[in-house]
């Protein structure tokens, strides 16, 4: 962090404080009103006056807030890596078909049985037998498959525009198979799958949350090792090579890292829109830099804050209903991306 000046450090510190505050806001709001003194008492280990409050706080809200923190960070970091690697301001897990790949994996698991009698669970019964893990594993496999295909293509094609088109094609092809499965699937399975596509931060707890944390941290390690290389990549592959950067290993690092980060986020929580694409731009705008030493922590902080805030809004505090997280991220994310495209000269940074 030596290159960061005082202003940047202050910004990063403020960002960290903001994330902590939003984390607390996130666990303080929800459909059920829990008085603030009860909430703080509960956090400090005092018994809460209603059993359901304690359950809501510890079994639901806190795991959900941690999930938002992890997934927001993961998606923002994977988006930033992709934008730099493909040198394309619109790259991200959504655009490059990773989410569609995960969707295809989950669709085969959930809809495959009722549509065509395909069963990933063998004779163990239907997808319900595997529960949450089935969705996580099949989503991961789908995401990794598409990412591998994309990276193979990336080696052949240097032009980022062509790559983007190919990514969209992978997405469309996955989408078409999903449509066929949806068309033939039964109503119950279709409902389950459709709601999965709307994203969800809740319901990840216990061992799943440990695994998600572990996987996300594993995905972040390669990023930390390659910060300098990413800075060089912005100037183009030739320049990076002349700087002594090993492009081959950087490619693999990027593929492994984004695959783990975006793939696990999508597999655990469904495709969450716009975080991966909008947050890195937001980080560049706020911190006014192209230096990845700053952009990585900045994107992580903004990604976490964005998703924590979106989740708090999606809970519609005080009402019995709740909205899917994607509704909120898209409502905020879409205008942001449009505004960025209208306002900014992307080519200066890519």
């Amino acid at each position: 962090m030596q290159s960061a000046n005082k202003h940047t450090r202050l910004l990063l510190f403020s960002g960290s404080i903001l994330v902590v505050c939003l984390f607390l806001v996130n666990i303080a709001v929800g459909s059920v009103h829990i008085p603030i003194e009860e909430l703080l008492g509960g956090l400090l280990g005092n018994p809460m006056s209603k059993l359901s409050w304690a359950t809501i706080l510890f079994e639901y809200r806190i795991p959900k807030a941690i999930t938002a923190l992890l997934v927001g960070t993961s998606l923002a970091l994977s988006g930033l890596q992709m934008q730099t690697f493909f040198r394309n301001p619109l790259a991200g897990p959504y655009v490059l078909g990773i989410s569609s790949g995960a969707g295809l994996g989950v669709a085969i698991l959930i809809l495959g049985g009722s549509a065509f009698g395909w069963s990933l669970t063998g004779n163990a019964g239907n997808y319900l037998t595997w529960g949450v893990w089935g969705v996580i594993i099949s989503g991961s496999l789908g995401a990794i498959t598409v990412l591998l295909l994309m990276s193979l293509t990336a080696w052949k094609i240097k032009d980022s525009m062509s790559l983007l088109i190919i990514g969209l094609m992978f997405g469309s092809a996955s989408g078409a198979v999903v449509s066929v499965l949806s068309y033939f699937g039964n109503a119950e399975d279709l409902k389950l799958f459709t709601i999965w596509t709307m994203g969800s931060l809740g319901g990840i707890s216990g061992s799943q949350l440990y695994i998600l944390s572990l996987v996300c941290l594993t995905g972040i390690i390669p990023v930390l090792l390659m910060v300098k290389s990413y800075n060089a990549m912005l100037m183009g592959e030739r320049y990076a090579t002349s700087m002594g950067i090993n492009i081959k290993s950087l490619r693999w690092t990027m593929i492994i890292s984004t695959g783990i980060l975006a793939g696990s986020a999508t597999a655990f929580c469904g495709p969450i829109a716009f975080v991966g694409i909008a947050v890195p731009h937001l980080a560049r705008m706020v911190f006014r830099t192209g230096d990845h030493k700053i952009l990585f922590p900045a994107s992580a902080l903004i990604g976490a804050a964005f998703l924590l805030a979106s989740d708090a809004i999606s809970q519609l505090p005080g009402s019995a209903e709740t909205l899917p997280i994607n509704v909120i991220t898209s409502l905020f994310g879409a205008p942001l991306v449009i505004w960025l495209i209208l306002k900014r000269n992307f080519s200066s940074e890519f």
Partner: protein
Amino acid sequence: MSRSNSALIFILLLAFACSPKTSKNESPSLKEIQLDHAVGFKIFQGEGFKLIEVPHAFPGEHKPFSYLVKEAKDIQIPDKQFDAVIDADVQKIILTSTTQIPHLDRLGISDKLIAFPNLDLISSKKIRQHIAKEQVQELGGGAKFNIEKIIDLQPDLVVISTLGDNMKDLQLLSKAHIPNVINGDYLEQHPLGRAEWIKFTGALTGQLEKATELYNEVKSTYENLKKSIEMADLDSIPSVLSGNMYKDIWYAPSGNNWGAIFLKDAGSEYIFKEDLSSGSLQLSYEYVLDKGINADVWISTAEFTDLESMENADHRYTQFNAFQKGQVYTFSLTRGPTGGLEYFELGYSRPDIILKDLIKIFHPEQLPGYKPYFYQKLN
């Protein structure tokens, strides 16, 4: 009177002269046959024909559909006034919803079914025998039925359940002179209202009397059961949680819907009885947990087979007392030989069985020796 006023009056008179004659309902020769609970259709008796009106064929606003059933060969009725004209002596029927399958069984006309979309969904023993003999054609297992095949089969009657999204297909059938009618049984809120749609099928097939008898049997059983619970000296009124979670959204029957009426009539206290909306409720987990953590019984609406798979699907289910005490029941274990859920086939026609099952769950002492038909406890 000015010239412009005269012109206006002339135009008005002309408009009245061109307006259609009195509506069919007001015709003195038509006599409405009173229905009991159903609000989605009306039946009128004419001379040698029955007129069926369906004001609620699918959700949302739409013009009422009117169908004419000819009960005699020689009556002359202008076709264009009706959405379909059917001969009561139908020989070839196509249905698109399992909820109407029991109508054919109970009216003794199962052999008239010639095609159905996704045959595997059918559980009825009689119709499964016809399927085994290849007397019932498959109309495709997709979200849309195969319209070409329907036209090719030339049925005398097609009964369709729709959300209103495939009116083009119905127009196509009408162009092909295939009488098609819409059954909106799923919109009825009262259990007996849904059961009464057997009269709709009865009226279409010249069997209204028999259908009325069958309905009255179901109604009297249902009402006797309901009354017995009202009069009984019950040990306690269990509180009931219903529905299931899909990711973060909990879907449950609203307090005034079909599922909730059963819970009330079976002598239980439904925790969402105050939450009224059309259709199902979409609630947050927090809200449901706060209201339902101590509920005595949980009537699940998803296709789980045991508590373990429920826990695997969503760990948050385990927070509920009903789950911890193993008081979770579901209708999804009674399946036909090809995997179709019987509840979704027979349930609409036989609300008395559903009520009896639920009474057995909530007040087992009231029905000693009775074994629930649809519902089973998850272990």
